[in-house]
């Protein structure tokens, strides 16, 4: 199992490179994970998506797909791609400390 070093702590990762333990997550960890995805600064809009992802995950046990994000997060597809280039659902899930969404198979 691979790991990542954040703020002096060693955190476990799953096979997709996402955090293995939800409880390892906090906002500072998110900022570091974002840097790993090439996102230098998390703005309010980023946080809106990340918080929405975490809320859905807590309710359903699965991170939402890009379609659900567009429908319900209050951020449209175009902006999602500019906030999280290439793969908004996959990247925001990773930064939110969640496993890769099931829809991304």
């Amino acid at each position: 199992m691979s790991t990542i070093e954040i703020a002096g702590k060693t955190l476990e990762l799953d096979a997709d490179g996402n955090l293995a333990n939800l409880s390892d997550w906090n906002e500072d960890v998110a900022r570091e994970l974002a840097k790993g995805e090439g996102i230098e600064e998390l703005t309010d809009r980023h946080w809106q998506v990340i918080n929405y992802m975490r809320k859905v995950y807590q309710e359903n046990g699965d991170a939402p797909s890009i379609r659900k994000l567009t429908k319900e997060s209050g951020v449209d597809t175009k902006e999602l791609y500019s906030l999280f280039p290439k793969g908004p659902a996959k990247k925001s899930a990773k930064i939110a400390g969640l496993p890769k969404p099931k829809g991304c198979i």
Partner: protein
Amino acid sequence: MKKLLILGAGTAGTMMLNKLANELDSSEWSITIVDQFETHYYQPGFLFIPFGIYNKKDVIKPKRDFFPTGVEVIVSGIDKIEPKENRVLLQNNQVLTYDYLIIATGTKIRPEETEGMMGELWHKNIFDFYTVEGAIALADFFKRWEGGKLVLNITEMPIKCPVAPLEFVFLADSYFTERGIRDKVDIHFVTPLPGAFTKPKASSILGDFLTKKNIHLTPDFSLARVDNENKKIVSWDETEIPFDVLVTIPTNMGDDVIERSGMGDELNFIPTDKQTLMVEGYDNIFAIGDCTNLPSSKAGSVAHFESDILFENFLDVIEGRKPRAKFDGHANCYIESGFGKGILIDFNYDTEPLPGKFPLPGVGPFSLLEETKMNHYGKVMFRWMYWNLLLKGKELPIESNMSMAGKRL
């Protein structure tokens, strides 16, 4: 009398109908199946139509040829499922009640979901091959085409038969080579995935095949819109790819009846237990085939493996037991790779496609993740097996759960 109702008489619904009609005592059970159409399409055959290998009559048969005797068949659109009332409303105004329900309404393409896809070039320079109409229109186009830039794109995942787009570009390479104009055709494979396929090992091996066949891969491209005027596709992050002919796999969604019934997710796929195949929240409804939200491939072979599991679980449930059989996500897909050869992949929820021999370790006759003539015959044989064994609910010579025998890690 207990009532079993099956919605959809495609691959999965027809298989379940045959298996259960054969098993359930006809003095105790009445079985009804509903579908809007009278014709059964062999969808895997659509792939071959654009290249003149099959034509329409090779892929259609009347659905009634596959219905057992003693069941009620209703040809009508399904308007709404009312799962709390155990009731289904049909578009012909009939109201059906049931004790047990099996939903098998499949998935279909929704080109209207993408801006500009159904613009003025639709079925002129922009084609799909997931419908018989699209495949035939493309065959006509290819016959007269002198060459240029051929772009295949997958709009968003999941799609049914996730290997079909790869097969399409492999066959295009073969077809234009045989026509002597391969040097005039520039083939591009554009996908929202990070590589040629969903799972890492298969993705890298299949990616090498693309390179070898001189097909250009553009990964991580999520289609935002189609620009008809300038003939290009544009991604959400404004990357543009021009085309002379676009072969697109539009968004795939479950039927609108699922949305009208409030039973689907955002793509109208039905939340279903990935092991038991029971619809979440109900103890008398099953779902099978492309209509579910299972994290497995949407393919006829998968529906077949599911049908063995659903059959066992159905018998458990009607006898008051908990469903015991567990589906493992098994998929087995022949990938046509052109020039009379094919590649085979075999995988499940947890094990990605691996190289090796199938089904007999060391012997085959099929080779996993390798290009062979024998794998191509497997695909050709699949059509015969589909019409003669699979739809009729007969046993196929493959286990429903995946086996590691013969696979190399």
